[in-house]
């Protein structure tokens, strides 16, 4: 385990020296049926920073995370993580690379038949031959980091939404990944939990030297913790830069999103025939 961790760190360091971007996305296209989700996206995610991808619901943010994780393949374009083209890797190599990635799903996705302790221990048991006492120590350390060491014997059904997400976070960092991906980490959480998760994301990124990718539409929260932001709309990147840069952007798209305006380039109405025409049709 220790040697593997050192190997991983050296690999990451080597990749870092070669390329200061951990993830490079070039001209990425993805479609579901006839609907274009991503249409020529270019994104670069630097090592050790928190990068957030923002955009309205359904704009393809989660799809982008799944593409980075190699769970789905793009129609066109390249996506490299630590210098490796994700979608040309063999299954074995992809699984090797995934051991160095962590992902926090929006739902938490805890295994409902396992306790909190066993959920966090799951990846460790799967990928290492550590003794029970070492696994126990490791799991308790991870649970301590998210403040839930005392909840180790609870089942997922006994946890609140915020607690479930923190357990899922402990599980995602169990193998000390080089990169963490967060899918809508603040959605549906109370203000205290949002504060806790924000603090955890920043702390884990800085103390473990990880690279963090967040997809979210919670403007205030992500602006407070991100080093760099990308904004996606209609499958394209419509703005990028630091939080202040985006707040003061001249772009109508970015402005509407950052200031939560109900109408603008992203229309309030779903495409439909003229209202009067629709009403008159009903009278026939």
């Amino acid at each position, binding site marked *: 385990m220790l040697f593997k961790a050192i190997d991983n760190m050296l690999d990451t360091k080597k990749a870092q020296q070669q390329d200061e971007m951990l993830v490079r996305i070039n001209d990425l296209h993805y479609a579901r049926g006839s609907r274009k989700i991503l249409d020529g996206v270019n994104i670069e995610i630097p090592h050790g920073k928190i990068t957030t991808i923002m955009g309205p619901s359904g704009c393809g943010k989660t799809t982008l995370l799944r593409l980075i994780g190699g769970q789905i393949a793009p129609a066109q374009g390249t996506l490299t993580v630590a210098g490796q083209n994700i979608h040309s890797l063999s299954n074995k190599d992809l699984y090797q690379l*995934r051991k160095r990635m962590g992902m926090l799903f929006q739902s938490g996705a805890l295994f409902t038949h396992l306790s909190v302790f066993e959920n966090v221990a*799951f990846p460790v048991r*799967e990928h290492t031959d550590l003794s029970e006492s070492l696994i126990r120590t490791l799991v308790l350390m991870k649970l301590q980091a998210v403040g839930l060491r005392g909840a180790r014997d609870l089942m997922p059904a006994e946890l609140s939404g915020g607690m479930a997400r923190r357990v899922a976070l402990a*599980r995602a960092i169990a193998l000390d990944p080089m990169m963490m991906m967060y899918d809508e980490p603040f959605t549906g959480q109370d203000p205290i939990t949002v504060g806790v998760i924000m603090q955890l994301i920043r702390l884990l990124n800085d103390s473990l030297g990880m690279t963090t990718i967040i997809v979210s539409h919670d403007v205030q929260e992500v602006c407070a913790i991100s080093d760099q932001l990308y904004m996606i709309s209609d499958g394209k990147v419509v703005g990028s830069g630091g939080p202040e840069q985006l707040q003061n952007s001249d772009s109508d798209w970015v402005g509407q999103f950052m200031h939560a305006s109900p109408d603008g380039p992203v229309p309030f109405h779903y495409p439909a025939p003229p209202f009067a025409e629709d009403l008159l049709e009903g009278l026939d």
Partner: protein
Amino acid sequence: MLMWLQNLGQSGMRVFQRLGEASLFLLQILMGIPSLIRHPRLLVHELYSVGVLSLAIIVISGLTVGMVLGLQMYNTLVDFGTEDSLGPVVALSLVRELGPVLTALLFSGRAGSALTAEIGLMKATDQLSVMEMMAVDPVKRVVVPRYVAGLISMPLLAAMFSAVGILGSYIVGVGMLGVDDGAFWSQMQHKVALDADVVNGVIKSIVFGMVAAWIAVFEGYKAVPTTEGVSRATTRTVVHTAFAVLGLDFILTAIMFGDN
């Protein structure tokens, strides 16, 4: 007319596409079976949930089917004065046909539907995706143990069904209707052949187990990850298994007993 033909063609294409997908999935499962050596506990757990927990329904159904069969057969045989043949008639019906077929149908309703719903819900709640992201193959970790457990459980449950069914017909025939005890067992021993009847029955139950478990895990794994999708997949498991088992039963019976 053209539209009708077009729809028919599309439906046919969909069926073949689904069959191809299911076959590739089965291949993936079979290739993953060696991974069970690393996780024997997973198989034991699934054997309990798929096999042991199905015992109650199998035993109760076997007993009632055997009792009804004993009663009906007795009423027919007694008219010809051949009620002593009750033992072999019931045993042959159960071992050759009713045991494997009814067990497969009950297995699909009890364990198959549960497998589909469980895997489908794991998919709907991202548990399969999170496994993939943790570099754990969900087919090997989730599907293979369930499939193998179904494969092992089915012949054992079918044997249990037949044994309990024979006991049920014994209770009714010998205990309540007065069939001779010695004739019941000795005629059964004389007429039921190990290779032609018992082994063929076991082969049938193994084939049905392969198909029932395959349909259950495939439908769960490929379910649309929504409440409605999982519900539809569960229904499809039960319906498709019934069709497959009844169709295969005819084919296997024709091959095994067609010459008699």
